[in-house]
């Protein structure tokens, strides 16, 4: 292999795939990135067997070839190189990759590319275009609600359902649910339903560009995998098997009280309350006080035996009876951080039934949180 690529593109490509590298693996080759010529471009791939990331960068190829090199070493090196052309030259018999750039000349010992696990490939006809205005934002609004508990694998996933012209992502950890819908610009030929590890989607959100982006998704039948294909990158992941909870059944049909607040003010009050609440199981109490004559407000209080007591008020437009309800403040903060509209609506029924948070004037996102109870 003999290739020349721009240092910047190479560094960027390596940072993209490096998240799939598994440095602590028992298979040494998984700590490596695959560097290979591929149809006129240079391909970089990494996998931890659960998730794989590939990206392609433009390159001048004088000789085809492939090798795997330790990811850490290679990307640390490339990051230090000057912003010039990097020449990669493989000595296939010693599996050594020579990296030359400017005045620098380094040999890196690698492992035969044959040992690199094959990356899943999507047959072109299997992919469905997933044209969503902002898939990245969708992921950010949903994936955080997935569980991190390894004992409940299914809840570590995000349920993706797509049919006709609508795609929905949903995640839950057993205490909260996040559901986001979006319109597809083209209707789907076949409906899709899959539970994708939240971690893989978060990586996808990281490597995907902001804004509109053409992406195709394939779920090759019987392989338990999903592949997201973008122009210069691809992410594949194992799917999670099992039955995702029927979240629709849990979402209440109606609410007695609707409380509209400024998102920023509510978030700020929650962040302040959290400082005290984190020493007391993260409990905050929301006292929803509809005003008779003056505008209503929500009092947010946190108390901890060791740390102290805090109270914040947020002005609110309240429709319905007042209520005192307790929540895990971390849950509140996390959802408020992903809501982009200036106002947010909190809907409630009672202190032991779920509260629903959604962006004011946007029906595509809902987030349900189960309250806490003080014994």
């Amino acid at each position, binding site marked *: 292999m003999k290739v020349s690529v721009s240092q910047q593109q190479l560094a960027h490509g390596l940072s993209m795939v490096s998240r799939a590298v598994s440095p602590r693996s*028992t298979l040494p080759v998984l700590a490596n990135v695959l560097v290979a010529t591929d149809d006129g471009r240079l391909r970089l791939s990494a996998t931890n067997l659960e998730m794989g990331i590939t990206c392609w960068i433009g390159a001048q190829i004088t000789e085809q070839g492939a090798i795997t090199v330790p990811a850490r070493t290679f990307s640390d090196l490339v990051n230090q190189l000057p912003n010039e052309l990097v020449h990669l030259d493989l000595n296939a018999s010693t599996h050594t990759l020579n990296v030359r750039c400017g005045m620098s000349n380094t040999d890196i010992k690698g492992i035969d590319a044959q040992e690199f696990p094959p990356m899943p490939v999507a047959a072109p006809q299997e992919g469905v275009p997933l044209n969503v205005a902002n898939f990245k934002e969708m992921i950010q609004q949903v994936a955080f609600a997935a569980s991190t508990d390894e004992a409940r694998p299914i809840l570590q996933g995000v349920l993706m359902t797509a049919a006709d012209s609508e795609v929905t992502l949903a995640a839950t950890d057993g205490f909260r649910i996040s559901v986001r819908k979006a319109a597809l610009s083209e209707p789907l030929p076949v409906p899709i339903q899959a539970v994708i590890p939240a971690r893989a989607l978060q990586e996808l959100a990281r490597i995907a560009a902001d804004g509109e982006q053409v992406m195709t998704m394939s779920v090759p039948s019987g392989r338990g995998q999903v592949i997201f294909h973008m122009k210069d990158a691809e992410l594949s992941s194992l799917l999670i098997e099992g039955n995702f909870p029927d979240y629709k059944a849990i979402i209440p049909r109606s609410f007695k009280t609707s409380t509209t607040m400024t998102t920023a003010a509510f978030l700020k009050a929650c962040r302040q309350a959290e400082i005290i609440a984190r020493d007391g199981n993260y409990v905050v109490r929301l006292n929803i006080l509809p005003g008779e004559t003056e505008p209503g407000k929500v009092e947010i209080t946190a108390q901890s035996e060791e740390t102290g007591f805090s109270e914040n008020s947020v002005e609110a437009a309240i429709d319905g009876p007042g209520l005192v309800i307790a929540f895990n403040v971390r849950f509140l903060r996390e959802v408020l951080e992903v809501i982009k509209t200036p106002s947010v609506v909190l809907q409630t029924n009672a202190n032991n039934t779920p509260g629903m948070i959604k962006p004011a004037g946007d029906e595509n996102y809902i987030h349900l949180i189960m309250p806490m109870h003080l014994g």
Partner: protein
Amino acid sequence: MPIRILSEEVASQIAAGEVVERPASVVKELMENALDAGASQVVIRIEKAGRRLVEVADDGVGIPREEIRLAVQRHATSKLETADDLFHIRTLGFRGEALASIGSVSRLTLTSRSAKDKSGMRLIMEGGQIKTVEETGAPAGTVVRVEDLFYNVPARLKFLKRDLTERQQIDALVTRYAVAYPERRFQLYHDGQVTLQTAGSGDRREVLATLYGIELARQMLEITLEDGDMRINGFISPVSLTRSNRREMTFFINGRWVQDVMLSSSVLQGYHTLLMVGRYPFTVLFISLPPEEVDVNVHPAKAEVRFRQPDRVFGAVQRAVRRGLLAYSAPPPITTTVWRGSPRQSAAVPPMIDPAWEMAAETKTAQREVSTVPSVTQPNLPSGQVPLLRLLGQIGATYLVAEGPDGLYLIDQHAAHERVLFEKLLSQSRGDVPTQILLEPVVFQLPPHGAQLLTEQLPLLTRLGFDVEPFGMNTFRVRALPALLTKSDPVAAVRAVVEDFEEDETPLQAEQEARLIARVCKRAAVKAGQALTPEEQSALLRDLEACQSPRTCPHGRPTMIHLSVDLLERQFGRRGSR
């Protein structure tokens, strides 16, 4: 004392002692008789853990009218004719001893009608004496009522364990037979309440589901192996499903439940390197062999057997298990993967080197090397608080490294978190406990004895902030968790309460509470091999500093190792080691 021949009464009580040790032995003998009689339904009624009553009713062949007296006579059996038959035993019973033995230490009522007789017979025996034999109307089949067990042998009575333990023994026994005989219907009542019931459909996985819960049954791997005239089949747990004790490895040989350490260790060899230290599989294996290959006549309660070719049997068991595990382990499960393994897991795969493991190993060697200096292994610090610590980082995703004014601290994150949760839960249980309600209540099932234990602990669980309620037979519903535990699986946290209970734990109430909390915390604490964010690491340190006894986990293991400045200096030769 001169040598005297024992009176018949005493002699038969001694003989009974070998067969009938406790209520569960009575259940076993009667149940086996019912199975031998070809019953399709076996109904077992227990009162007061079997002290008051053990009754087994079946719809089997019954006892012919004229033989009813023989049935309770010692060495009377319909199952064996010649001594030679002893080597081809196909029935569970063969000594003709059980009813006689039971009858000598209880009040026994035997009612039976054989299908060919118009009316049945009832025989009443008390302390080994037949009191009455009379004709009676009865459905075809046999009912044996054993009342007031050991009423005439107070010494035996004293050896019985508390009711809970005796019940557990009975439950464990009936559960196992119900699994072994899926085509028979079993019903078990304790004090009038049904606690176990199977459909008799013949589907063993279905029986597992009714007794151990659908989730477990779904995960169990079915295995079979045939080797000439030997056949092994049954169910084994995947490596992701483990128990903390060996009790859930069950073996049936030719339909008979046996306990054999060699069989258990063959199974464990089958799992070799796949399970973490201290974890055991859940298995039910059925081995069938030509009767002449097994000697069942070695133990009075028939709980042990001898094989003619032991190595062949043990080897086959090990192979069957290993093959089963490998066959099912095709797609790497998304959660328990070796490649992101914790040091402990990857230790099981020695040939390849995992950097994480090396790291942990390094600290281990370090520990070993310096352990010649006593202050390392036995921290000689006051048992009280720890000084303020400055976090340096995490190693091997298992230990935290921190600096204190007096040297370096290595902290086991799991043990430390256990300690933190433990103290918080314990102090909360004395006041208001904030609970987090679940979106959807989770329903789960326990085996009967687990259900019993959990029911006893419900009030304490409520005080800890669990909202758990009974929800049908052996089934429970969790509606809320203590807020502290929201990162853990609700069912696992509740199960932890009953999972590892040892048979005879009868601690004082206060101690029991602490133990139970410790159990829950062990489950809920972060595991070794779990990468923590820097924020999580420092939060853990802060919480540990605030603990009353930060140096040990609730189970008494150390949470930290301290390498004093003094020690470091000596080790590096900066100061002579006097």
